[in-house]
């Protein structure tokens, strides 16, 4: 379980850097897939389904909304359309605090929504929370249940 990777969909290299630092600080050992745009994210998820040995599917997606090529909400929509990814936790991690974005994200099946903190300390605290909740505590169904 701990070995499963985290998919970080983030076009900002800076944010990728800070997230990785934060992961390190929070002692998150999971491998991290980085997708720098929406299309790449979909591609990666698709690949992971085809050859789970080389590229196992992620246990968590951290998704920025404002992305080149394919916007985050489209990526989320695509994920929820895939039967095998229907229960995949998707955490929106974006700089927008706009209510409309929050509404849109949850209505498309996001599991959580976080605004990017402006300082390192806050980010570290947030990543630590994500680790505790999504990687250690929460239990998710293995496959899509009938009712979904």
């Amino acid at each position: 379980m701990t070995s499963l990777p985290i998919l970080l969909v983030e076009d900002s290299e800076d944010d990728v850097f800070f997230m990785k630092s934060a992961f390190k600080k929070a002692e998150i050992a999971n491998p991290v897939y980085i997708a720098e745009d929406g299309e790449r994210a979909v591609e990666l998820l698709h690949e992971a389904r085809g050859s789970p040995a080389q590229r196992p599917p992620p246990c968590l997606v951290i998704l920025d909304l404002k992305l080149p090529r394919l916007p985050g909400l489209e990526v989320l929509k695509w994920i929820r359309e895939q039967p095998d990814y229907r229960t995949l936790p998707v955490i929106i991690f974006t700089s927008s605090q706009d209510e409309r974005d929050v509404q849109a994200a949850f209505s498309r099946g996001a599991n959580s929504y976080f605004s990017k903190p402006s300082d390192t300390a806050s980010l570290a605290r947030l990543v630590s929370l994500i680790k505790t909740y999504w990687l250690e505590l929460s239990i998710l169904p293995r496959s899509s249940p009938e009712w979904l």
Partner: protein
Amino acid sequence: MRDSLNSVSNSRGLSSPIYSGNSSPARQHSSDEPPARCAELRAFFETAAIPLHWVGPEGTILWANKAELDLLGYSQDEYIGRKISDFHVDHILASEILQRLARGEPLEQRKAQLRCRDGAIKTVLIDSSAFWENGRFVLSQCFSRDITGRELAEQRLALQYSVAEALAQAGPVSEAAVKTLRIIGENSGWDVGVLWILDREIKQLRCLEYWNAPAVKFPNFEALCRKLTFDEGVGLIGRVWACRRPAWIPDLRNDGNFPRASAAESDGLRAACAFPIFLEEEIVAVLELFSREVRPENDEFVKIISAVGAQIAQYLLRKRAEEGLLASERRMQQMMSLMPIGVYTCDASGCINFFNRRAAELWGAEPSPGETEEAFWRKLQLWRVDGTRVLPHETPMAQSMLLGRSVRDEELVIVRGNGEKMVISIEIEPLLDLTGHRFGSISVFQDITKQARADYMSRLLAAIVESSDDAIVSKDLNGVITSWNRGAQRLFGYETHEIVGRSVTVLLPPERLDEEATILDRIRHGLRIDHFETLRRRKNGELIHVSLTVSPVRDQKGRIVGASKIARDISDRKRAEKALHDAKEELARANAELEMRVQERTAKLRETINDLEAFSYTVSHDLRAPLRAIQGYAAAIREEHATSLAPDAIQMLERVSRSAIRLDRLIQDVLTYSRFVRSDFDIGPVDLDMLFHETVANYPEWRSPRVEIKIRDKLPRVLGNEPLLSQCITNLIGNAAKFVAPGTTPRIEIWHEAAGSNVRVCFRDNGIGIDPKDHRRIFGLFERIYSPKEFDGTGIGLSIVRKAVERMGGSIGVDSALGQGSTFWIELPPGDLTGR
């Protein structure tokens, strides 16, 4: 008298009484026989022309000469030897004469009436003296002079005179009839008189009056007379009626045509005569007389009564005329009384001697007896119709009186006792007798107030119609124009004389001729046409727009007799309407254009807003990202390379971090502010107390002992928006906690109070205070009083609060002075109207 007797006796040479030798009474009284020596004297008297008889002391006729016997119509046997009183009409007179003679008093020119053998009465003058022998009254000798002719003439005259007098004095016809009957009866010795009147309705004679001599009664006969009526030809009077001449029945017992015969018989009536009374050749009455004695027909009497009949006829004629006059006068008076106009008459001196009921009503008063019309009218205050006063000598009454001429249709205003004004029209006509002499006047007057008012109104209306700008035209039900005002002349161009009498269709354009039929049809049904807009043609052929209002005109009985038409020239209005229409179209075009522009603008604005939103999105996302990066890398360097960096480098990196953080906050505040400006917020009741505690709880740095927050009492509900209010609380408490002198523990007291109908929530701090000159500035965007070095901040916090409060319909203010702390307050509508 004695001498006279002697002289008469002597003059007549009567020395001895005449003796009638072959008369049986004379033979019976042989001792009284005259001496024979008088035989030649006797022969003389026997043949004398003067009637003479001798009467013995007992009243027996001893002898009578031929003249006497001829006069009375008796033979010697019938006359001589009988009592003289048997032949006198008046028995008493006969015995009186004898007594006088017996006393030795001679009789001279004594009038007496003697009955003839045929029943006629002869009037004679008797001269008589007694013949004495040995102191004994032996006989009387009587000379009679027949004066019947003279007497009759006298009698006729007397009768006529009496009748004339009676008729002249008589009142009603019946009274005259009784008087006449009495006079005739008494004068001529008839016992009963009846006056029969021809009743034209029933064509029969009926009894008008009955009279009989006072000494006797004829009850059966009277009753019958009063009861019966007679047809022409029936009975005595019927015969008179039929024959148109007098009739005489000497003895009723011998007459076959007398229906009342038995009554007459039982009451002892014997003779009758009847006389027609003519009025203009027509029998109007019959006079009938009855006597208890048989009476031969007497031509002389017939003549007398015929003359009397003519008098009665004259009387009846006069009476009829009088009655006619009376009736006509009564009719006249009645007519005058009932007349709906005032009528009064005056005598020659101007005194009102008659007025009818209407006159008194109109006057509202009644003239007192003997009051002159001039004096009476003066009391009523006379004015002319034009409002000027009529002076006493100017009144029509005075004029008529003074000049004796007629006044015609004089109009006056009178003020009656009750102050009411009345317009009257008066006519005065002098009354002239046959000689042209004025003996009075008759005046008629009537109340013409209504007419005068109506006249005034109609003149006023006519003036209004005439001066109207609108064309006012009347027409009959055939569409023929009957009146035409000046407005019509102006509008249509026709003069009145050119158009009156012509059909209204001359005003219609040919293609609209059928409109007139429709209009007239509506008018005939009593309907009006209101503001019918159409085209009409002027005299010069020009077409004009008119608005027609046509109403039926009714006569006094309500029948529709025509129509009045008001035509208004609406060409100007039509032009104006067209202009208005054009303007409206232009406006509509402009509006459409404007609408398009607005839409364009709106689209542009929406685009702008979208851009702005995209911008703020970009700002929030893209601008903050590098800041995070700056801050993040600075932090990373400090943490990961702390050992290899100089202490001032670490300090500089901290500044980089702080700047980045501050800029990020600034950006967030700006975004918040702009969101407050442009977004829509739902306003509703908010539990301020709960919100306050929740908000404060989110900030651990405000907890005691770092900051002392005291809420006096439970905060009320207000009308607002929760996120906005939360933002306000955060900012205000944040400021209060921040702007304090170094080393001072911020103390914040919060309470609420009423401010008019709103709720005011106050935040008092023990901070550094704000100079009043800065009170307005502090709510402006980016306004800062202190440098970031003194007090950190973006300068947007209070602007956000102000904007938020404004968006909730409230207000914000501050009371503060430097070093005195500040009290910020916000006012909002109460959220719990019912709960307060």
